[in-house]
């Protein structure tokens, strides 16, 4: 199961699109996890493009619409972090899609029919806060996570401990050791069968149906 991977920066430039489904994500962690889920679900014909950040999606999407092969894309997916405002992120996606004259879904997870059909996924959920780390955290072993939290307590870390930091410490203790979610997804450390990934799984199947 080959998933085409490209990025807005670096060597894997988006030259052309030969896959009927294109998923745009914010970063390399999201890209690796989405690609791993696609492989796990044995979904054919996916291309995942890393937009490298949450800024400049409007101009970048306009440019992507002009890349050779985009006219043959049947399903376009946008995966965005909710951060601290899931509704605001969805609204931003809608504006970006409208600017590119693409179909605009009313809500996250819904497929707006057209050529291509378009769906938006907000992670961790359409009414939550956070990012891809919040999706992954429930899949981690509870006992080992308790050790991670004890580690921070032992260090007497003050202030709110960010999810990203907890995830990094957890992954550092895995075997093989992983420095981030990208490596974890690629090395099979992530338990992708866990129900926490069901939302993304449904999103990908929705796109597959386009």
């Amino acid at each position: 199961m080959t998933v085409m991977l490209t990025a807005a920066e670096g060597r894997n430039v988006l030259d052309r699109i030969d896959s009927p489904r294109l998923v745009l994500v914010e970063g390399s962690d999201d890209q690796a996890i989405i690609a791993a889920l696609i492989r796990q679900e044995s979904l054919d014909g996916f291309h995942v493009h890393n937009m490298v950040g949450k800024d400049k999606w409007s101009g970048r999407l306009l440019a992507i619409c002009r890349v050779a092969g985009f006219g043959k894309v049947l399903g376009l997916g946008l995966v965005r972090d909710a951060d601290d405002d899931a509704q605001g992120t969805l609204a931003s996606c809608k504006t970006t899609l409208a600017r590119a004259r693409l179909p605009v879904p009313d809500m996250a997870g819904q497929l707006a029919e057209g050529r291509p059909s378009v769906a938006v996924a907000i992670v961790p959920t359409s009414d939550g806060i956070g990012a891809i780390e919040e999706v992954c955290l429930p899949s981690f072993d509870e006992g080992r996570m308790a050790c991670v939290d004890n580690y921070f307590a032992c260090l007497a870390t003050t202030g709110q401990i960010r999810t990203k930091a907890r995830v990094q410490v957890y992954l550092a203790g895995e075997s093989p050791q992983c420095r981030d979610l990208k490596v974890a997804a690629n090395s099979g450390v992530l338990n992708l069968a866990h129900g926490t990934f069901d939302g993304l799984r449904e999103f990908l199947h929705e796109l597959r149906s386009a």
Partner: protein
Amino acid sequence: MYKSLQIENFRGLRHLDVPRLAPVTILTGRNNVGKTTVLESLFLHAGGPRAAQLLLTLLRPYRQPGVAPNIEFSRYATPWETAFYDRDPSKRIRLIGQIDRHKITIELSIPRENLPSHIPSGLRSGEATSATTFASVPAFSYEMRILIDDKSILPDELKHREYTQSVSAQIGQTFFGASGLQQIAGVNFDLKPEEDSDALVLSNFISPQGRSSSVELAQRYTNLRLRKREGGFLNAMRAIEPAIDTIEVLFSGTPALYVSLQGGPLLPLSAMGEGMISVANYAAAIFDTDGGLILIDEVENGIHYTALERLWRQIGQAVKDTGTQVVASTHSYECVRAAYQAFQGDPDTLQLVRLQQGDDAPAAVAAVDYDLETLEGALDMSLDLR
């Protein structure tokens, strides 16, 4: 100003729709995709009543100075057929341009009596075997028709009828001489009706092979001086050579442009680098063609990448000052990026059109347009725009 262009059956393009042309349009795309053909289409269309004559100047086997018509060529196709898609002159060339609010169609065809079955075959290389052999490329002709939605913008003499003109021509003669195959240069042609109407839009086509002569440049600069518009020309030249003090027209046998750098002696422009000569051609054409159309093939030719942004700024300013439209092709990523940087904050002036394989018909070429925001997104992601 040209807003859009449709091309049918011209050279390698069966159909191409260029949906938007801006005051400054950059054309990109891989080799042989049709960039020069788009420039030539605009050149012919802008010529209007002169299109059939102008087509003679664009016959590619003849366009490189010093190169004789390729004798081998005539074994397979006559040179004038290369103007037609699939080398099939039965498919008429149609160029549909929108100039401001008007849609104007120019059709070019070879009259039925001159279609290939009626044209004697050309020379075959085997025939040119001795110094006594002498033959000519057969005569041929084009016919042109102008269709227009509003005749009011046509020159006065053309307003009241559908305009059709034919041009028949014989391009040089080829013979086997002391130094091998040689060509007697020159094109003889007859016009029917015999009238020389104004072009629809005054245009200049500048290519690496087709620059103005020193005399023409001197004449243009003189025109600018007479109209006190040499300042823009000087600024454009300084964009690539800030050390320029003065530019003068001097007469030494023939008039020519001379340039002084940092108080040094006046030197002929022709002694300067390629980039200086390129920019002199661009600036002279833009400032001497108010409201016209400047077509530049391979605009970056000879110009260092660090000077490109300054050059584009000068072109942008010149376009604003003169109302001249510029369409330029390039293979250079630096050139595209420099144009974007020069026109940032001025979204209505710059447009990039990339010719690329079409999604629906892979064998066909499609024109994909990028406005400034889209261009920013593409450059930001290092998409291949060339």
